[in-house]
C-alpha cells in the first residue's frame, strides 16, 4: 500500500513539473463570478467553454471561475441548464475579470442543444456523481405533499430507501451512517423528522445538491458510502421576495431580499407542522399530547467586492413528542425531543485571479433527549436520558486554476467532536438514594489534509487524481490513514467516454443504530482504543454518453466495494439496555457492538433528461450486499436487510403548458431481507441445586428458531405517485396549486410482518402503512 502511495505521489509531482515546463508561453487568465440576473444569486456549476481550443471550466461552490489561456482572440460561452446562454468575444492580452449575469430561461419549447457549451457528463473525469436537480424537487409528487430532497435522492440509481416512507439513504450497500450530509460545509448528524418519514430538507432554501456515490474526490472524507453536499441560497441581492406554502401537515415561509442592494442579502426559510395545534381542542382537559417539528434556515452575506465575501448561515430544527396528564394529586409530563443546529461562517478570498480560497468556521450540534416529570402528592420524580454530538470545525480550502489542463484543489480541515453517547439524570424525592446523574463523554480531534488535480492529460483523457491524509485522536489513541483517490475518463468518441475510479475511505465516527426502525435514538460514537475506524475500498467502472440531440445523458456503472471494521449492534442489544443482564453492570456501548465486513457490488443504469418539456429519469440498480460479523449469525455471512437485487425508479415531469405541470414517479424494489421465526421450541435450561418455587430443577421457556439471519424476503415494494400543478401568474406574484396522490394504485407494501392467527393456525400477517393518500398544497410567491 505504501509503495502504491509513493508511486502515486511521484506521478502527481511529475505531472505538475512537466506542466510547469510547458507553461512558460505568455498566458493570461479570465476569471470572475457568475450570478443569476435579477437576484444576484451566485451560480454553482455553470459552464465556461472556449470552442476554439476545447478548454473549459466550471464555477465552484461559490460561483467563481478561472481559466488561463495563451494570448489570442477567443469566443467564450457561458451556459447552465435553465439559463440563457451568453456569448462573448475576447482578445486576451492581459488578465481579465469578467463577472457574468445569466438570466433564467423561461422557454418551454424543445431547444435542442447541439454544441458542447453545456457541461457534458462524458467529459467529466468524475464518476458516480449526480447533480440533484433542485428545481425538479418541487415538481416531483411527494408524500403528504411535503417536498423532500432525500426522498428524491432515493430515486437515484445506487441509492436505496430503507422502509416505507422513510427518508433513510442506503448508498451502494452502505448504511445511513455512512453518508456525509453537509449543508454549507456543516455536517448534519440526523437528517430526519418523525422517525425518518420526512427529511430536514424541503429544498426551499437550497441552491444546489450533489450526490457522490463513489470515485470520491480527495476534498471529501470521513464517511464510507456517499457525500450529499448541499449549498443554501444566498438570498436575493436586488429585490425583496417571498414564498409561502400551506400543505396538509405543515406550512412554510421563505423571505429573502437585500440588506444593502447588490452588496448584502438575507434569506430566511421556516417550516412547521401543525397537527398538535389542530388536535389540541379535541383532547380531554387533563390529558394532552402532541407532536411537531420545525425547520429554520437562515443566511446573510456581505460582498466586499471582487476579493472578499462573507457568508453566515445556519440551520435549526427540532422534533418533539410530548404528553401530559393532570389530576388533583398526580401530574405527569413526558416526551422526547431531538434536533440539529448548525452554523457556518465562510470567508471567500481571492488571492489573485487564479487562486481562490474559502475559510469556514463551522458549528454543528445534534441532541436527543427523553424527559419525564412526575409528581404524586407533591413528591417529584424526574428523569432525563440524552445523547448527542457537537462539533467545532475549521476548514480552509484552495482552488487553484493553474492551467486549463490542471485545476488544483487543496485544503485542510480540523474538527473537534464532543460525543455524549449516553447521559442520564434521575431525581426521586421518594427515594433520594436512587438519584442518578451520570454521563459518558468523549472528545476527539479529526483532521484531514488533501490535494487533488483535475487534469486533462490528452484531449481525450482526463483524470482527477488526489490524495487525502486523515487522522483521528481520541483519548490516548491516534489513528492515521492515507486515502488515495483516482477517477479518470477516456473519450472513446465524441460524447461517449469510459470511466474508472478507485477510492479509499475511512470513517472515524460511527452511528449505533437499531435496525428496522429509524429512530432518533441512534447514537453517534467515536472510534476508540477498542473500536477501530471503518474502512472501505471501492472500484467502479462505467460508460457515460451524452445524447445531445435528445437532451439525454446515459450512464452505466459497475462497482465493487469492500468495507471492513464496520460496526453493528450485537444480537439482542439496543440502546435501551442500560444494565447488562449478564453481569448486572452498566453497559458500555463498546461492549454492545461487534465489528465485521461488508461486500457490495452491482451495476447501475441511469438515463436522464434535464431539459425540455418532458424531463426526468429512469434508474435501474442490480446489487448485492452481504455482511459478516463474528458475533452475528454465528459468524456466517448473510444478506444485509437492505440488500436489494433489483431497484427501479422512473421519474417524469411534463410541462403541459406554462400553467400546468404533470408529474409522476414509479418505484420498484426487491423486498428487504428479514429474519422471521420458522418454528418455536422449548429451550433447554440448566439448573443444579434444589428445586425452587416448587418447580423441578430444569426450567422451561419458549424460544423461536429463526434459522439463519435475514433468510426471508419481504414482498417486493412498488408504488406510483402522481401530481399535477397549476400555476397562475398574478400581477406581481405567482401562485401554485398542487394536487397529488401518493401510492396511486393503493399497493399494500409490507412495512413489517408479525405472527397472528389462532394458536392452532398461525399466520404471517403483514402491516402496510400508507394506502392511496391524496394531498393538496398551495404556494404563493411574490
Amino acid at each position, binding site marked *: 500500500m505504501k509503495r502504491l502511495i509513493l508511486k502515486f505521489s511521484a506521478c502527481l509531482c511529475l505531472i505538475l513539473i512537466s506542466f510547469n515546463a510547458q507553461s512558460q508561453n505568455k498566458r493570461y487568465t479570465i476569471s470572475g463570478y457568475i450570478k443569476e440576473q435579477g437576484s444576484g444569486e451566485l451560480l454553482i456549476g455553470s459552464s465556461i467553454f472556449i470552442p476554439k481550443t476545447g478548454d473549459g471550466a466550471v464555477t465552484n461552490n461559490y460561483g467563481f471561475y478561472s481559466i488561463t489561456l495563451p494570448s489570442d482572440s477567443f469566443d467564450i460561452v457561458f451556459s447552465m441548464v435553465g439559463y440563457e446562454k451568453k456569448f462573448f468575444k475576447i482578445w486576451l492580452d492581459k488578465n481579465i475579470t469578467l463577472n457574468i449575469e445569466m438570466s433564467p430561461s423561461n422557454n418551454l419549447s424543445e431547444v435542442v442543444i447541439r454544441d458542447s457549451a453545456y457541461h457534458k457528463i462524458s467529459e467529466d473525469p468524475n464518476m458516480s456523481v449526480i447533480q440533484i436537480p433542485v428545481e425538479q424537487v418541487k415538481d416531483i409528487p411527494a408524500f403528504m405533499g411535503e417536498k423532500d430532497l432525500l426522498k428524491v435522492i432515493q430515486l437515484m440509481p445506487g441509492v436505496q430507501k430503507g422502509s416505507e416512507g422513510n427518508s433513510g439513504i442506503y448508498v451502494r450497500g452502505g448504511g445511513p451512517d455512512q453518508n456525509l450530509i453537509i449543508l454549507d460545509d456543516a455536517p448534519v448528524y440526523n437528517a430526519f423528522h418523525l422517525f425518518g418519514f420526512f427529511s430536514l430538507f424541503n429544498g426551499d432554501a437550497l441552491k444546489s445538491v450533489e450526490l457522490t456515490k463513489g470515485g470520491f474526490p480527495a476534498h471529501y472524507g470521513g464517511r464510507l458510502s456517499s457525500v450529499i453536499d448541499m449549498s443554501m441560497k444566498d438570498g436575493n441581492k436586488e429585490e425583496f421576495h417571498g414564498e409561502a406554502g400551506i400543505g396538509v401537515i405543515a406550512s412554510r415561509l421563505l423571505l429573502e431580499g437585500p440588506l444593502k442592494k447588490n452588496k448584502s442579502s438575507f434569506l430566511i426559510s421556516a417550516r412547521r407542522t401543525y397537527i398538535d395545534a389542530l388536535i389540541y381542542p379535541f383532547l380531554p382537559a387533563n390529558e394532552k399530547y402532541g407532536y411537531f417539528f420545525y425547520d429554520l434556515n437562515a443566511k446573510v452575506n456581505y460582498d466586499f467586492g471582487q476579493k472578499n465575501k462573507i457568508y453566515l448561515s445556519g440551520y435549526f430544527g427540532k422534533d418533539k413528542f410530548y404528553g401530559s396528564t393532570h389530576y388533583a394529586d398526580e401530574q405527569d409530563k413526558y416526551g422526547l425531543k431531538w434536533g440539529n443546529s448548525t452554523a457556518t461562517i465562510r470567508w471567500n478570498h481571492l488571492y489573485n485571479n487564479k487562486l481562490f480560497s474559502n475559510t469556514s468556521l463551522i458549528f454543528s450540534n445534534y441532541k436527543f433527549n427523553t424527559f*419525564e416529570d412526575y409528581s404524586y402528592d407533591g413528591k417529584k420524580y424526574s428523569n432525563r436520558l440524552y445523547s448527542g454530538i457537537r462539533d467545532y470545525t475549521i476548514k480552509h480550502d484552495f482552488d487553484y486554476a493553474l492551467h486549463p489542463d490542471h485545476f488544483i484543489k487543496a485544503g485542510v480541515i480540523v474538527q473537534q467532536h464532543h460525543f455524549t453517547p449516553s447521559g442520564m439524570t434521575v431525581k426521586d424525592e421518594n427515594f433520594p438514594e436512587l438519584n442518578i446523574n451520570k454521563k459518558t463523554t468523549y472528545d476527539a480531534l479529526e483532521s484531514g489534509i488533501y490535494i487533488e488535480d483535475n487534469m486533462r492529460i490528452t484531449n481525450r483523457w482526463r483524470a482527477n487524481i488526489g490524495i487525502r491524509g486523515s487522522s483521528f485522536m481520541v483519548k490516548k489513541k491516534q489513528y492515521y490513514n492515507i486515502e488515495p483517490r483516482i477517477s479518470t475518463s477516456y473519450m472513446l468518441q465524441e460524447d461517449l467516454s469510459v470511466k474508472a475510479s478507485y477510492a479509499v475511505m475511512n470513517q472515524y465516527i460511527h452511528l449505533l443504530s437499531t435496525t428496522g426502525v429509524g429512530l432518533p435514538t441512534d447514537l453517534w460514537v467515536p472510534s476508540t482504543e477498542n473500536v477501530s475506524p471503518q474502512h472501505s475500498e471501492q472500484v467502479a467502472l462505467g460508460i457515460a454518453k451524452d445524447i445531445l440531440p435528445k437532451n439525454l445523458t446515459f450512464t452505466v456503472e459497475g462497482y465493487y466495494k469492500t468495507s471492513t471494521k464496520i460496526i453493528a449492534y450485537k444480537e439482542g442489544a439496543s440502546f435501551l439496555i*442500560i444494565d447488562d443482564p449478564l*453481569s448486572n453492570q452498566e453497559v458500555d456501548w463498546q461492549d454492545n457492538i461487534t465489528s465485521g465486513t461488508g461486500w457490495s457490488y452491482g451495476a447501475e443504469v441511469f438515463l436522464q433528461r434535464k431539459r425540455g418539456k418532458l424531463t426526468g429519469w429512469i434508474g435501474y440498480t442490480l446489487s448485492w450486499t452481504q455482511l459478516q460479523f463474528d458475533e452475528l449469525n454465528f459468524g456466517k455471512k448473510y444478506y444485509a436487510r437492505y440488500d436489494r437485487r433489483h431497484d427501479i425508479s422512473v421519474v417524469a415531469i411534463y410541462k403541459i403548458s406554462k400553467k400546468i405541470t404533470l408529474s409522476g414517479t414509479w418505484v420498484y424494489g426487491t423486498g428487504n431481507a428479514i429474519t422471521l421465526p420458522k418454528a418455536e*421450541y422449548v429451550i*433447554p435450561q*440448566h439448573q443444579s441445586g434444589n428445586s425452587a418455587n416448587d418447580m423441578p430443577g430444569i426450567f422451561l421457556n419458549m424460544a423461536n428458531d429463526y434459522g439463519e439471519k435475514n433468510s426471508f424476503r419481504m*414482498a417486493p415494494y412498488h408504488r406510483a405517485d402522481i401530481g399535477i400543478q397549476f400555476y397562475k401568474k398574478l400581477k406581481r406574484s405567482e401562485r401554485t396549486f398542487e394536487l397529488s396522490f401518493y401510492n396511486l394504485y393503493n399497493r399494500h407494501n409490507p412495512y413489517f410482518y408479525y405472527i397472528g392467527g389462532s394458536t392452532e393456525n398461525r399466520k404471517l400477517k403483514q*402491516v402496510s402503512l400508507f394506502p392511496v393518500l391524496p394531498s393538496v398544497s398551495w404556494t404563493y410567491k411574490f
Partner: protein
Amino acid sequence: MIKKHITYHLSLIMILALTLTSCERDADIDLPHVEPMLVLGGFISPDDDSVMITISKSDPIFDGKSIDADVNDVTLNISDGTTQKAMTLKENRFSGNSYFYISKSEFPIIPGKTYAINAESAGGLKASAECTTSLTEHVDIDSVIVDNTVHSDNYYTETKYNLIISFDDPAEKNYYRLYAQAVFRDSQGNIYYRNFNYDIHEYVLIDDKNSNGQRITSKLSFINYTTTGYPSELIGFDVYLLNIDEEYHKYYKSLDRVVFGEDPFSEPTLVYTNIKNGLGIFCSFRESKKSMRF
C-alpha cells in the same frame, strides 16, 4: 425503571403513529416448508449423580397446525466412544415435559472424555451431538459477603441483599455461570428455596478474558418482599459457581439475550445450538457450592 418508561413511550408513539394509517392483512410471500426438529438439552458433569437429556420437538409456525408433542417414539443413545447405552425416557411429573435419564453407576461421566448422543424418532427425525468434558478442575468459591438495605412502609418491607462473591480464576481459559438460591423457612418449619429475582438477574455469566488467572469478584442481588401477615423467614443463601465449557457459555450468552431481550427495537436473537439436525445444546460443566446460613 427508566428503560421501561422509554420503552413504553416510544412503543406508544410508534403504535399510535402506525395505527393511524396502517392496515394489516395476510402476508403474500412464499413461506418455506419447515419440518419439526428434535430439541435436546444435555448439561453433563462428572459431579452429577446422573445424566439427564431433555427432549422435545420444535413446532413449525406456519404449517397450519399445532405440534404433535409426543416424544414417546424417540430413542436416545449415549456413548463415550467405547460404550454405548440407551437412556430411559421419563416424564417430569411437575411440568409434564420429557427427558432421558441414565444413572452415574450405569454410565459415569469422566473428565477428558468425548461423549456423543444420538436421538431418533419412529417418524424419522434424527439429531445428534458431541461434547468433550474438557474441564478437569473445580473452581471453588472463596468468599461470599452479604450486605442489605431495607425499605419499609406500613404494608410491606423490601430488603435488598447484595452478595459479593469472589474466587480465584485458574491460569487457563475459563467461563463461569454464577447463581444463587435464597433459602426460606415457613411458619411450619419447612425449608424451601427461591431463585433470585428474575427482573434483576438470576445469574451472572463470566468470561475470564480480561481477568485470566486473577481473582474475580462478582455480584448477585436478591430482593425479599415481606408483607404483614405472611411471615416467612430467610435463613440463608446457597451460592453455585459453575465452571462451564465454551459451548455452555455460547449457548447461555445467546439465550440470555432472548430471555432478557424484551426490547422491541433489538434484532431477533438467534439461539446457539450445537445439535446436528436439531436444536438445543449438549455441553459440560463442573460445580462448586457454598451454603451460607444466617
